[in-house]
Structure formats: structure tokens, C-alpha cells
């Protein structure tokens, strides 16, 4: 009896396992072929040192050169800092917007506002950035407007500085902060806020003790997404930053495409990956969140 039952049970379990493997296969293939495999290849490439035409040896020269040449590491630090600043600024602007959408209004107007926040993303990032160029350039909207009002008598150039880059980056990443914040604030029970006021808390205390702790997973998720997008952005800094735009992704692009130096470019890519993982890890530690809690 038991002897006859065993094989069939085994077959059932094998069938289950097979269907599980089949279910997971697309995700695993995606991970393996498009993320892990290229990264292994990139790592191998970054350890190749060019001695001459078609002559390579294995070594760490590509990495040591990064630390020896101040341009490279200072660009990476600068990129990381501006990205953090852009993320903070995005959060500051997006939080009131998200709170208003989630808590202050209801029904059709809520949907309308949400769509309005989404609207700029119906055009490509390139077009949006070119729009900013039209606004900020010397012969652009702001410069001409100020002259027309008589506030300035010379055209002003607003492009080609870090502020222009920040404006572009914040504008580009707004939506990715608003959406997680709205989701998480939607789930906040209004009675909790009321109770906070009933117990004598002022607006600031309620914000600090009730709203922000509740919204923390959304804040962290939004910050991670915005930080990653900003750090990896290449278009906005290049177009709005002009001659002073130093962005690390641009350095990587230059190494790969313009200088034909794939080995160094691969090393730079890895360093960028390490820095971004590090910043996210530190951010999670400070806010005492885990990746799992921010994703639910």
C-alpha cells in the first residue's frame, strides 16, 4: 500500500517543482542573462590592463588610476552629492504635493491632480530637458521676461551651472517621489491625525510623531528610486550643465564610446555601482528601514 503510494506522491512533488521552475524561469533568465552575466563580463573587462595594441594583462591598474587621478574621484563624489541634494529637494517639494493629493482632497479633483502630476511624463525626457533649455538660455523666456520687466538691463545666462542641473533633475524625478508617497499617505488613517490634535499636538508635532513615521517606507522607497535615477542620469546634466557639467555617467560614456577604453569604463561602472549601493545602504541604516519594508 505504502509502496504503491510513494511513487505517485513523488511524481506529484516533481510536477510541482517543475511548474515552480517554469514560473520562475522568466525572472531567473532575466536576472541571469541581463544583469548577472553582463556584470561578470564587466568585472572581467575591468581587470584587463592594456599594454599595447591587442596586448593585455590582468591587474588592478584601471582601479588604481581612478584614485590616482583627482578628476575621476572628485567627479564621482560631486555626482553623488548633487544626487543626494536633488533627492532631498525632490522629497521637500513632493511631500506637500503628495499630502495634498492623498489627504486634503477627494474624488474627481484628486484624480485630476494625480493626472496633472503624471502629465509631464507623457513626453520624453529629452523634450522635457530641451524645454528647460528654452526657458533658461540667454535668449530664453526668463532672461527676456526679466529684461521686459526692466529688472535687468543685460541678458542673463542661467544654463551651465549646478543650479540648472538640480532644477532639471528634480523636475525629472518628481513623479517617482510623488507616487510612493501618495500610496503610503493614502493608507494613513485620518482619525490618527485627529487624535494627535485632540491630544494637544500642534501641526509640527503631528507631522513629526504621526505622519512622517507612517510615511517612512514611502519616503525611503521614493528616495532610493530618485537617487538611483539621478545618479545614473546622463542626459539632464549634459544638456543643462553645459561646459561645467561633470557627471560620472558621462565619464563612463566618454571612456567607452569616445576613447575606446572599455577596460577603464568597466572599472568606472563598477565603482559607480559600489558607491550607489553604499549610499542606499547607509540611508537604510540611518532611517532604520529594510529594503523589504520599503517595497511593501
Amino acid at each position: 500500500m505504502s509502496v504503491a503510494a510513494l511513487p505517485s506522491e513523488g511524481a506529484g512533488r516533481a510536477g510541482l517543482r517543475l511548474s515552480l521552475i517554469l514560473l520562475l524561469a522568466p525572472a531567473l533568465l532575466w536576472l541571469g542573462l541581463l544583469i548577472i552575466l553582463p556584470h561578470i563580463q564587466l568585472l572581467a573587462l575591468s581587470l584587463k590592463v592594456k599594454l599595447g595594441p591587442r596586448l593585455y594583462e590582468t591587474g588592478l591598474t584601471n582601479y588604481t588610476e581612478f584614485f590616482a587621478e583627482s578628476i575621476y574621484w572628485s567627479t564621482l563624489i560631486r555626482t553623488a552629492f548633487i544626487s543626494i541634494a536633488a533627492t532631498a529637494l525632490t522629497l521637500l517639494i513632493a511631500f506637500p504635493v503628495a499630502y495634498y493629493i492623498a489627504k486634503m482632497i477627494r474624488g474627481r479633483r484628486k484624480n485630476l491632480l494625480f493626472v496633472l502630476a503624471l502629465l509631464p511624463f507623457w513626453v520624453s525626457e529629452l523634450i522635457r530637458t530641451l524645454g528647460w533649455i528654452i526657458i533658461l538660455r540667454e535668449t530664453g523666456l526668463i532672461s527676456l521676461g526679466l529684461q521686459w520687466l526692466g529688472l535687468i538691463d543685460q541678458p542673463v545666462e542661467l544654463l551651465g551651472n549646478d543650479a540648472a542641473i538640480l532644477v532639471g533633475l528634480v523636475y525629472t524625478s518628481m513623479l517617482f517621489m510623488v507616487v510612493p508617497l501618495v500610496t503610503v499617505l493614502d493608507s494613513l488613517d485620518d482619525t490618527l491625525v485627529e487624535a494627535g490634535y485632540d491630544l494637544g499636538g500642534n501641526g509640527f508635532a503631528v507631522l513629526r510623531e504621526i505622519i512622517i513615521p507612517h510615511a517612512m517606507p514611502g519616503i525611503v522607497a521614493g528616495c532610493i528610486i530618485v537617487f538611483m535615477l539621478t545618479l545614473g542620469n546622463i542626459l539632464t546634466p549634459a544638456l543643462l550643465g553645459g561646459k561645467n557639467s561633470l557627471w560620472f555617467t558621462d565619464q563612463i560614456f566618454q571612456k567607452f564610446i569616445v576613447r575606446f577604453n572599455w577596460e577603464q569604463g568597466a572599472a568606472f561602472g563598477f565603482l559607480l555601482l559600489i558607491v550607489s549601493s553604499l549610499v542606499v545602504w547607509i540611508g537604510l541604516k540611518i532611517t532604520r528601514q529594510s529594503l523589504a519594508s520599503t517595497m511593501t
Partner: protein
Amino acid sequence: MRNELLRTAAVSAVLVATMAVFSAAQAAELRLLTWSGYAPDDVVAQFEAETGIDVEVTFSNNEEMISKLRATRGAGFDLAQPSQDRIEGPQVEFEIYKPIDLSQIDTSLFIPSLLEATKGNTTVDGQVYGVPHVWGTSGLVVDRANAGDVADYGDLCNGSHAGKVSMRLKRPVLIGFAFSMGMDPFAAYSDPAEYEQILNKVAESLIACKADVKAFWEGGDQLISSISTGEVTAAMAWDTGGWKLNNENPDVTFVAPSSGALGWVDSFVLPARGENDEAAYKWINFVMQPEIAAKITGAAGNFTASQGADAFVSDTLKAQFNDSFPQEAIDNINWYPPVPAGLEDLEGRVLDRIRASG
């Protein structure tokens, strides 16, 4: 069982048929990697009508062409058009081209001096890898009403046009400024140590000049818009950009710098794993016919290596050319010699330094 066999047979038959159709389509296709303007729609249409070969055009630039071909080890395209000075180095380093069979090309269509010079510059191990197509120069585009005193690259940095000058932060700017400072970078190509010294001197003066630079331009359209709005009055740029602007504003034109315009020749090469050499040779022989070459000159704004094509070029462009290039300016052109492998690493480091300064 029989059903399954039948099904398998049917599926494989369909597969084979699809593959046959696919490869047949591929055989009658020319995948061309070129610069914008070098394959105008009317020329492509005429070629397709005459030969029955479909042309798939991809626009690019020197660095991108080499990078693309390097990524695939020379596959994906049947004909490419890098400049003649960018053939020897990449071939030595990455083996991305294959030799040209000159017997397949009607050499009588070419201007003999240009053909010989290009053959010489693109010879690796005794085999020719390139033939010339379009030539032109880099120099200065100047708004003569506002920056009439700019006659050489160095004048961009004399301080009197601060905030109104532009250049492209690539290798031509280093070479142009080296000539303008009285050095000969081409003579130092073979001596990396000396070349590095020249680059360092150029970098020093460009870093000092950076405050005067409005922007480092990336694409031709960007430069044209900043000059036509008056934001930039003098720039280092390609001749054709200056002539395009001249059509709208007669004050703006291309000026050959007193230390010599930098002459380039974009050429034809066969990618190492190109699949349709026959179509590639047909295209070369087709576009080098004088009438067709003149059409390309009309679209790209630069003259070609086609013998006798000048007769078909518009009078406006000819007048603009003669205005920018008196005979002594033509004799003064510094033609790019082949870039030795490895030299671009040196230049890259210097360009990074300039970009990061200030």
C-alpha cells in the same frame, strides 16, 4: 505519434521557409553606417531603383562608428564611413575592417591625388582599407560684424570675446590650438613623449581660456542655433556649418585660420564581418558619379572626391567656398595624418582635465 511527426515537419518547414525569406531579404540589402547628409533620400531612392538593393542608413560619427564596429568585431554593417585618419589605428588595435578590392571600384571616378593620399594613409600590412568620399575642414565660424578680428584659433581666447566663443571639446581643438601656438602636433604623432608635452601646453592655455567659453558644443545644430541667436560670435567648427549660417546671415561665415584649417577626408571602409561587399562596391561606384556626388555635396555642404562633380554644385556654395578659401588658404590646410594607436588615450586624459577644470 504520426500526428506529432507531421506537426514537427510542418513547423520546421515553416521555419526553413522564414529563414530563406529572411536571408534572401538580407542579400539584397546594404547596411550603411555614415554621417548625416552623406546618404540623402533622393540618392538612396535612385540607387534602390537602379539596383534593386535596399539601403538601410544609420547616421553616426567617427567615435561611434568605431565603437559600434568594435562591439560586434566588425559585424552589423556592410559599409562604413570613418575619416581616413581613423582607419589605421583602430584596424591595428581592434581588427574591425577588411581590405578593399580596388579592382571592384571604378577608380577613374576619383580625384587622383585624393585617392592616392587616402590609399597611402589607410594601408596596413600592405593592404588598402579605405577610399575617399567627402572632404572638408575644421576652422573658425565667425560673425564678422561682432568678432571680425578673430583670424586664428588663439584669437578665440584673446579675452575680447569673453563669454561669446564656443568650441567642441574633442581632438581637433587640441590640434588646432597646438598649430595656433606655433607647434606641429602632426610631426609629433610618432613621438608620444613630445606629443604629450605639446598637449600639456595646449591644455594649459585652454584651461585659462575656459572662463571665456560660452559652451562646448556637441552637435552641429546646437552650434548653429547659438550663433544665429547671437549668443556666440566666434567658434571653432566645421566649414559647412559656417556656410549654412551664411545663407541666413551674410555677416557669418567660415574663416580658414591663419595657422591653417584642419583637413579631413571621410572615406569608405568595409567592416570586417560585412555580409554584402558586392552591394557596398555598387554603392561606392554609384555615389562617386559626378551628378550624384554633387547631390551629396548639396545635402552635406562639403565637397567630394568625385572627379568633375564641381561642375554640378550650386553656385552659392562655390562662392562661399571661394570666399573662405583663397588659394593660399587651400595650400595652408593641415591634413590629418593617420592617428597612431594609443595616441587617443593621451588626448583623452588631457580633454578630461580641461573639462574638469575651473
